[in-house]
């Protein structure tokens, strides 16, 4: 006997609780997009236990980074800005830093953030965003959404949610840690305004790139687990293959952009306005001088250009998939 069959009478509730009309106001359309963003953020947290555990680990790591930042004391020879930039830039790196213009990289922030946190962050981002479209497709709710929202509102809500989510994981810890770091060194925050703006620019750019990438995978792949796995494997194997390609021709700086992990690090540096990455050691332990503003080989504009190409291509794929949604997918 089903729940429905247990009802004593098929019309009893009609008499008990009749239909009431609604004479309230309707919200402007942009508010509906905000409601969608809010809903996605909350339901993302609710859906995956594994993501929750990873998030807690990340928060603990971040806490120690913040603690480290608050307690840090640097030697006189250390350029504070270099330490800060290196720490921020390697936040999402999957490997230990290969670009660092300061030997003091492992001070403070770098200690907490450069050692493996990138892997966890990439996994959490993948888990969070991979269900945004895949779950809607499997749950057949796209049709319901599109009966109430325009396609562009629906997509904006999804993109907005993943961008905010990634910023919660990236922008918030980096800003707080950066501020504490500056505070602990007795520096004036105003002097570091461009540094904070750099963090914001970087965070917004990578949240758009990574967010769009996750969403494209989510709409192309039916299952959220596959989408998040592909997302992680892309970064993991992309890093390995990218490094191998670069090792094949180490003098070609442009090949540094092949590895997604390196690209994110370089993007952070250029967003922070740090173009002279100084002397670093490549995998063969040969000394390399990487300057992104010397008119030779890899330039900071190349990094921005690649970022915008990523955004353009991913946006076009996403738009195409949504606008060409087939009846079977609805």
């Amino acid at each position: 006997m089903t729940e429905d069959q247990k009802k004593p009478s098929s019309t009893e509730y009609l008499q008990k609780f009749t239909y009431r009309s609604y004479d309230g106001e309707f919200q402007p359309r942009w508010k509906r997009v905000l409601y969608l963003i809010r809903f996605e953020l909350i339901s993302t947290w609710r859906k995956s236990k594994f993501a929750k555990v990873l998030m807690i680990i990340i928060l603990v790591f971040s806490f120690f980074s913040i603690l480290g930042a608050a307690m840090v004391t640097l030697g006189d020879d250390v350029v504070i800005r270099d330490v800060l930039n290196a720490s921020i830039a390697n936040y999402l790196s999957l490997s230990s830093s290969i670009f660092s213009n300061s030997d003091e990289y492992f001070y403070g922030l770098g200690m907490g953030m450069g050692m493996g946190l990138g892997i966890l962050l990439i996994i959490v981002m993948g888990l969070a965003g991979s269900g945004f479209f895949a779950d809607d497709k499997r749950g057949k709710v796209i049709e319901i959404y599109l009966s109430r929202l325009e396609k562009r509102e629906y997509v904006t809500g999804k993109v907005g949610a993943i961008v905010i989510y990634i910023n919660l994981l990236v922008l918030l810890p980096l800003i707080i840690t950066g501020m504490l770091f500056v505070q602990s060194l007795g520096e004036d925050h105003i002097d570091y305004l461009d540094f904070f703006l750099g963090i914001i620019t970087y965070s917004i750019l990578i949240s758009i790139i990574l967010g769009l990438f996750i969403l494209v995978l989510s709409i192309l792949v039916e299952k959220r687990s596959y989408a998040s796995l592909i997302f992680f494997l892309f970064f993991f194997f992309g890093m390995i293959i990218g490094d191998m390609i670069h090792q094949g021709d180490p003098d070609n700086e442009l090949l540094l952009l092949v590895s997604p992990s390196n690209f994110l690090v370089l993007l952070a540096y250029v967003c922070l306005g740090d173009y002279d990455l100084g002397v670093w050691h490549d995998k063969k332990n040969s000394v390399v001088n990487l300057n992104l503003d010397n008119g030779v080989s890899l330039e900071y504009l190349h990094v921005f250009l690649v970022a915008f190409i990523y955004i353009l291509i991913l946006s076009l794929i996403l738009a195409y998939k949504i606008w060409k949604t087939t009846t079977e997918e609805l």
Partner: protein
Amino acid sequence: MKNILVIRELVKNYGSFLALDGFTCNIPKGVTGLLGPNGAGKTTFLRAVLGILPFKSGSIKFLDYELPKDILAVKDKIGYQPEVDTKILKISAMKYVTHMATMAGLSRNAAKQRAFDTLHYVGLEEARYRDMNNFSQGMMQKVKLATALVHDPVLLILDEPTAGCDPDSHEQILNLISDLGSTHGKNILIATHLLPDVEKTASSVVIMNLGKTVIQGELRSILQKKDKIINLQIRVNGGDINKFAKLLQENDFEVTNVAETISFNIEREDDKKYLSIFNIARNNGMNIRMMTAYQQSLEDVFLDEIAKNQMEN
């Protein structure tokens, strides 16, 4: 009767397949049934009205709005219950309906209140905080109906609203549809394969096939619409029923069946023939106890019209 939807020459194709082939119809106010065999274009038409699928040519007028120009205003005034089960992972019915209410433009507080009201109305007051992914088919249909109703739309579009329901849920949903249509003056368009559902709830019907309108109008007049020939059923006493059937045949009546009653065909307007039936009975010492025209069902009309339409095409 003022029409709530006026559709003219609607064309929609998927590649070389023509899903809507100049579909034209008027959907009057009240409850209307949209009938058609699989692949007739019903769901495509509904999605075109909702602005989910763009159409190639033709026009859709909803009240005073033109589609696709006024689609945003139209979306707020239509509540849609899709055929498929819609699910979001790990969510209660209350949260789901509340969320969909905010998507329809209600504020958070209003959405919660309306979700509570509509879930109560459809009979899910006790189950509203349970994970809807564990609901039975009947309960899912009610959640979808509550979702369609939550923003108090002018027009409800229900695609197979009773599909998969057990008999009790089925009856409950039909009662809800009737209540919404008759008591609360809701305009409802029901697309379904279950013709008795339409007979029970709708006042008008549109039958479509191969992307075109086959027949449309008030249900009562469609059921009465018959050919010149009608089928009469009579029962006699005071004599042998087989003998009476034979007498009818001798008098040029086309007898189709003899059992407890005699069924035979007669021209609708032929008064002399009607009179002769009574004369035959009286002359043979029999009394006619019952004479009734065979009441065709919507299913008869549907099957006839679809068969005719397919022969024409």
